[in-house]
């Protein structure tokens, strides 16, 4: 008997447009599915159509669009109640079993049809022109079929069961809409589970399950093997199917076929009135009716409150609020983690966490409640009463709009509250309400507000709730895709870009003003949309689009016209102002223009790459920093020396390619004529009047100006900022061809550029003489006077000779006591400073220790200071004496997340050590460790430089890791060292699995940080355990002695830098003959790190 019901359900759905629209939507989305799901993710060597990628994409798409399942399944039974024909249905001689089974199977069949769009779409996607053949493995339809059956089908069944039952039992459309969120909550909750197996078992979309199931697979296996239908994946699927059956069973039991109506009646107690009361004597008072602006304003306020309250009354909204709060409390357990150590629950971390996890909730509210609000009167069948009143369409629409925005704000306040609860629970009481406020009301709210305009406009125009919802989602996705393809100018990418990061040091800095301007511009656009929507909105019974178009012109009231045209005027004015800033004061380059430029740069100038050029041997500059206006000038000279054995006739100068940098007043001692052929590339050739003979030097004077004019499109430069400026000499003129301007990655083949390796071979004669890519110096004498705002401290390498104020500015004169590498950073900020002194055992002269930090960031200063002392002691005793008279750490804003060593100076990001919440019982002292690592670079990097070939980072980074590890070992228990190494092992494993190209050995490592950092630390620890710490140190001591850049016994006799081969030679010297195999095994071959 169920069959006719099944057939009816299918026949009904076949005639409905939304069935096809949903299918088409999934189909079209899935074509770009892999790109969308994996955008920005590094797939490593795994191909775009590998079974695992297909499976994960299918899982993710199903997850995102589970809401479609609820729209299809949820309305199946509910429909009878919506159309109020349930009594007609249920009096028929059909059994409850047949009715439910027929309906369920019918809708489920339709659901499968709709989701087959994913299957077909993804297959078609494989043949899209944006893939290179090398991205793909040969087409295999079974990969898609298997993923569809294994990944999609079971969870679709569960979803179908759940949504079918909730729809049938609740009989409320709004429950149907919002139940997709239940799924998301489940998903998020599984994400918070720390046990991998349980998480994988419970993940409804099998994303973590698939990761776990293929954890031990190599890249090749992941590329070719089909997904394993055994073990965890099988259990995962069985679990969800079983749960689905349970839900169905429960629904079957609870669904009441006969007494649906009685049950409904029970709920409302009947209202009774005293029978006859004559009310004839009630006089209806005469009241004033007002239709002026003031009354419209009152109406607007009233509407806003009314619609706000109407959403507040929905349990689904409170479900969202509570879920949002709970998820965040679960999720924000790990904040700003560095090497496994969490940061203090500083407000901006909390805010970022809240923003990230709540976005989905906000979007759900936006998409669904905008539909709800637009359809509210029609849903309640009250529209004709509304429409016959003299209210203005615009006021009503604007009221709904404001009401929804108030809802966002309410959720935001709830989230802020949960954030504060979290901080309090963790014993952190510096709440920084303004950061909370900005994070939500400044960063998130404008985004939501603007998209709400779109959602309202679309809902009004489409005049069909489901189609409207789908169109809004399509709009979201297309905006994301548009910007992914590089069409991201603020003036046409809807809503403009996001606000830059908040930093304790620099606040929102210079990002804020353009952000607000651009948001205002889009706000005007949005209001215009709202006005247009109000003119087209359905009033009365006319829904035909053309009729509505015709009617719209009668709807424009005078006041609305005035308002509209002033909004449009402001829109145009703001737009022009933004255009003036982004495209006239600054240059705007699209991605393709930038790419073309890089290609042309390489094609034109590559010929000069290894052209003999003089080296910079002396730098003497006066730098004037103007942090408040974000400008600087650098004026002074380089001394260039011809170290080749041939005369040099022309000097090639590369100015930094950036529109707001100008290089003027460049001149050479003895005179030179400028060849302007390559000025397009800011590449200037100076033909010297008299050739520079071998061994001769020449002075090059120049003045460089960096001027910030207005603002740019997108995120602008975050180096030169109001507080916490940090930029290095790569911004100053360099000599010769610059490899960094070349196009990199897969794109090269599209432009017929030859493949390029990340690092030259260890025997490459051109690069053996370079310590850095395109190096234009082998070491310099350095002197700099740097001026900055009066309340800031400016720090560069060298001894501070003098400090004074002049013209209400602070000046600092630095000079290096010994030659140093041509690598220096200029740092300026409003700093607190912690000073100390370190006395070496051998050298009587004390070294000045300084930590320049942002006020309040005192948490780990003592640890860093302790590390400075311990490191200097260990390294100078075991390797060689420390070369400078000072060692400074300077905090910089968290626009970048690293610490970096320069001669005697270590700029250190706000986010990696200063706010870590280190618990001595459970955590490794990472602030101590990172400091030790950076100080080790004063030896490995500053004292000895390595040739710019494979294995370079083995010398620089791995040895620094080793050195820091030894300091850690000396100062902390073995447990801590093991804990640290364990963490390194995990890092190594994780990255290794993602890696596309084959893992190199340490001796030939290129840019694989998991090798030179993580594996390096593990391997060196192993090595010293076998041959002894003292022996390793002896080898390093000898290595430093021979290869010191300035006075190395070997280095001064040989015209090249050290390589890993040289270093391993010293290792062999200290290793007993019978252990030599170990060196080959650890450093020269790729050996798996063992888990012990």
């Amino acid at each position: 008997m169920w069959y006719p019901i099944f057939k009816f359900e299918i026949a009904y759905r076949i005639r409905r447009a939304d069935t096809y629209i949903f299918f088409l939507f999934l189909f079209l989305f899935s074509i770009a599915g892999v790109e969308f799901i994996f955008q920005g993710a590094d797939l490593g060597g795994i191909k775009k159509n590998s079974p695992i990628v297909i499976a994960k994409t299918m899982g993710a798409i199903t997850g995102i669009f589970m809401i479609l399942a609820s729209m299809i399944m949820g309305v199946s039974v509910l429909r009878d109640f919506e159309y109020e024909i349930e009594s007609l249905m249920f009096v028929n001689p059909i059994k409850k079993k047949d009715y439910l089974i027929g309906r369920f199977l019918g809708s489920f069949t339709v659901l499968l049809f709709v989701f087959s769009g994913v299957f077909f779409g993804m297959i078609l996607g494989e043949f899209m022109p944006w893939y290179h053949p090398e991205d793909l493995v040969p087409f295999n339809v079974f990969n898609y079929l298997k993923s569809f059956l294994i990944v999609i089908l079971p969870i679709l069944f569960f979803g179908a069961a759940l949504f079918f039952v909730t729809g049938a039992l609740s009989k409320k459309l709004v429950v149907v809409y919002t139940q997709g969120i239940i799924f998301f909550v489940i998903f998020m909750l599984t994400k918070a589970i720390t046990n991998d197996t349980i998480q994988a078992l419970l993940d409804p979309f099998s994303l973590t399950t698939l990761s776990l199931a293929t954890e031990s697979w190599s890249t090749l296996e992941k590329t070719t093997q089909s997904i394993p239908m055994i073990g965890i994946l099988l259990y995962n699927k069985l679990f969800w199917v079983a749960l689905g059956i349970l839900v169905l069973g429960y629904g079957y039991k609870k669904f009441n076929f006969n007494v649906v109506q009685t049950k409904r009646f029970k709920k409302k107690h009947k209202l009774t009135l005293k029978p006859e009361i004559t009310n004839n004597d009630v006089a209806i008072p005469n009241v004033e009716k007002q239709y002026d602006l003031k009354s419209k304003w009152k109406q607007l306020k009233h509407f806003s409150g009314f619609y706000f309250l109407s959403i507040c009354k929905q349990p689904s909204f409170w479900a969202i609020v509570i879920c949002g709060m709970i998820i965040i409390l679960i999720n924000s357990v790990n904040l700003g983690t560095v090497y496994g150590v969490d940061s203090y629950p500083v407000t901006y971390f909390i805010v970022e966490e809240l923003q990230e996890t709540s976005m989905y909730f906000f979007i759900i509210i936006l998409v669904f409640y905008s539909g709800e609000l637009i359809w509210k009167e029609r849903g309640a069948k009250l529209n004709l009463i509304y429409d016959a009143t003299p209210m203005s369409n615009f006021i009503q629409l604007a009221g709904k709009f404001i009401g929804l925005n108030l809802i966002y704000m309410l959720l935001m306040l709830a989230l802020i509250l949960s954030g504060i609860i979290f901080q309090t629970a963790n014993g952190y009481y510096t709440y920084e309400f303004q950061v909370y406020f900005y994070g939500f009301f400044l960063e998130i709210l404008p985004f939501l507000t603007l998209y709400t305009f779109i959602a309202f406009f679309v809902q009004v125009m489409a005049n069909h709730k489901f189609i409207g919802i789908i169109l809004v989602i399509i709009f979201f996705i297309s905006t994301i895709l548009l910007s992914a393809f590089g069409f991201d100018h603020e003036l046409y990418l809807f809503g403009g870009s996001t606000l830059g990061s908040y930093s304790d040091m620099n606040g929102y800095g210079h990002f804020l003003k353009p952000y607000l301007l651009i948001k205002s511009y889009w706000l005007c656009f949005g209001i215009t949309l709202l006005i247009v929507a109000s003119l087209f909105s359905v009033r009365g019974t006319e829904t035909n689009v053309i009729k509505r178009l015709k009617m719209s012109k009668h709807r424009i009231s005078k006041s609305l016209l005035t308002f509209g045209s002033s909004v449009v005027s402001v829109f145009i004015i703001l737009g022009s102002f933004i255009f003036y800033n982004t495209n006239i004061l600054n240059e705007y380059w699209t991605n393709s223009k930038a790419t073309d430029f890089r290609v042309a740069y390489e094609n034109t100038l590559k010929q000069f790459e290894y052209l003999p050029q003089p080296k910079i041997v002396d730098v003497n500059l006066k730098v004037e920093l103007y942090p408040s206006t974000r400008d600087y000038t650098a004026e002074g000279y380089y001394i260039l020396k011809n170290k080749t054995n041939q005369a040099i006739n022309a000097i090639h100068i590369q100015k930094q390619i950036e529109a707001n940098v100008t290089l003027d007043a460049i001149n050479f001692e003895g005179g030179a004529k400028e060849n302007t052929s390559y000025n397009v590339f800011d590449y200037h050739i100076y033909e010297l009047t008299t050739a520079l003979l071998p061994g001769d030097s020449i002075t090059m004077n120049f003045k460089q100006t960096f001027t910030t004019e207005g603002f740019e499109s997108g995120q602008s430069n975050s180096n030169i900022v109001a507080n916490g400026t940090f930029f290095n000499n790569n911004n100053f003129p360099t000599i010769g061809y610059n490899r960094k301007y070349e196009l990199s990655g897969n794109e090269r083949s599209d432009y017929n550029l030859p493949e390029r390796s990340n690092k030259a071979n260890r025997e490459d004669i051109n690069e053996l003489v370079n310590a850095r890519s395109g190096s234009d110096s082998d070491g310099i004498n350095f002197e700099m006077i740097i001026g900055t705002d009066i309340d800031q401290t400016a720090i560069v390498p060298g001894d501070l000779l003098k400090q004074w104020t002049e013209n209400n500015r602070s000046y600092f004169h630095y000079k290096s006591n010994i030659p140093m590498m041509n690598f220096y950073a200029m740092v300026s900020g409003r700093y607190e400073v912690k000073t100390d002194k370190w006395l070496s055992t051998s050298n009587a002269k004390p070294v000045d220790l300084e930590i320049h930090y942002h006020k309040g960031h005192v948490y780990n200063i003592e640890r860093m200071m302790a590390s400075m002392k311990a490191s200097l002691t260990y390294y100078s005793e075991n390797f060689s004496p420390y070369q400078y008279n000072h060692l400074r750490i300077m905090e910089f804003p968290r626009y970048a997340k690293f610490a970096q060593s320069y001669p005697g100076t270590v700029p250190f990001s706000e986010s990696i050590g200063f706010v870590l919440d280190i618990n001595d019982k459970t955590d490794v002292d990472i602030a101590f460790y990172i400091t030790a690592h950076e100080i080790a670079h004063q030896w490995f990097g500053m004292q000895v430089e390595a040739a710019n070939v494979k294995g370079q980072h083995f010398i620089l980074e791995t040895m620094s890791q080793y050195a820091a590890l030894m300091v850690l070992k000396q100062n902390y228990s073995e447990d801590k060292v093991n804990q640290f190494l364990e963490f390194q092992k995990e890092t190594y494993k994780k990255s290794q699995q993602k890696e596309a190209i084959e893992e190199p050995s340490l001796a030939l490592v290129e840019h694989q940080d998991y090798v030179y950092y993580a594996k390096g630390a593990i391997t060196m620890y192993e090595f010293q355990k076998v041959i002894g710490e003292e022996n390793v140190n002896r080898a390093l001591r000898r290595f430093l002695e021979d290869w010191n850049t300035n006075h190395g016994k070997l280095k001064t006799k040989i015209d090249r830098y050290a390589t890993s081969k040289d270093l391993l030679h010293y290792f062999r010297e200290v290793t007993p003959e019978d252990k030599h195999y170990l060196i080959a095994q650890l450093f020269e071959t790729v050996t798996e790190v063992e888990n012990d």
Partner: protein
Amino acid sequence: MELIIDNLSKTYSNGIKALQNISLEIPTGMFGLLGPNGAGKSTFMRTLATLQEADNGTVFLGKIDVLQQKNELRQVLGYLPQQFGLYPKISAEFLLNHFAVLKGISNKNQRKELVDALLHKTNLYEVRTQKLSGFSGGMKQRFGIAQALLNNPKLLIVDEPTAGLDPVERNRFYNILSELGEQTVVILSTHIVDDVKELCTNMAIINKGRVSLKGNPLQLIDNLKNKVYQKTISKLELEDYKQNYQVISEKLFLGKPTIHILSDTNPRDGFVLVNAELEDVYFSQIFGNQSNLKSIA
């Protein structure tokens, strides 16, 4: 003030001619609009209530051009649609206040006073704080009229307000309507003939989109004086009678068909002259043939 409808026409996109050249002059007071289901009553009412566009014709309420100056009309319009719902989770008082704001009653105190008065008037005051989901059909209809009266309308349109109400509720509803002052044009559409007779001073019958009859109910009844005859027959005879007489209605009386026919002269043959009722007027328009129409006009 008078509502003057001239030559109003509307054809739907599917070809149905909902209104065909309707011309009516409706004075203040109650005006009844009779017609069978699907005759175009609701289309007509919605057009008057600015909710639907007409293809041709003009409608004026005093100086207000109803079809063009929609907002001006809405300021003096009260409208109770044939079918409407209520937000379930809010109270009558809250929703009535909400509508009062929509209708431009900005002063909070005045609004409160007005809402209270209307709740009293419609006998809903006691349940004003209850959720609307608990309202019965009659209460809902009374709420509907309270809402329509908020702005002291000059034109009140009520579309089949008593459909589905029990007789007590129906009376209660009409009591409220009948109290409205003489200043208001009240258009009441219904297919219950007695409603019109009891309440309306003027009426029109609409059938198939046309006005087939208009006038004062008593006058119209008077036109049929001495023309309506009744006879109780057996079921088998019905077709014969339909052939030979102008049968305007047939209904069962104690299980046997009783027919009314229209005739200028006494047909004898067992027919009895009866007092014409408004129902006879109505049925004569709906089921009588053209020749009969002429004879009445």
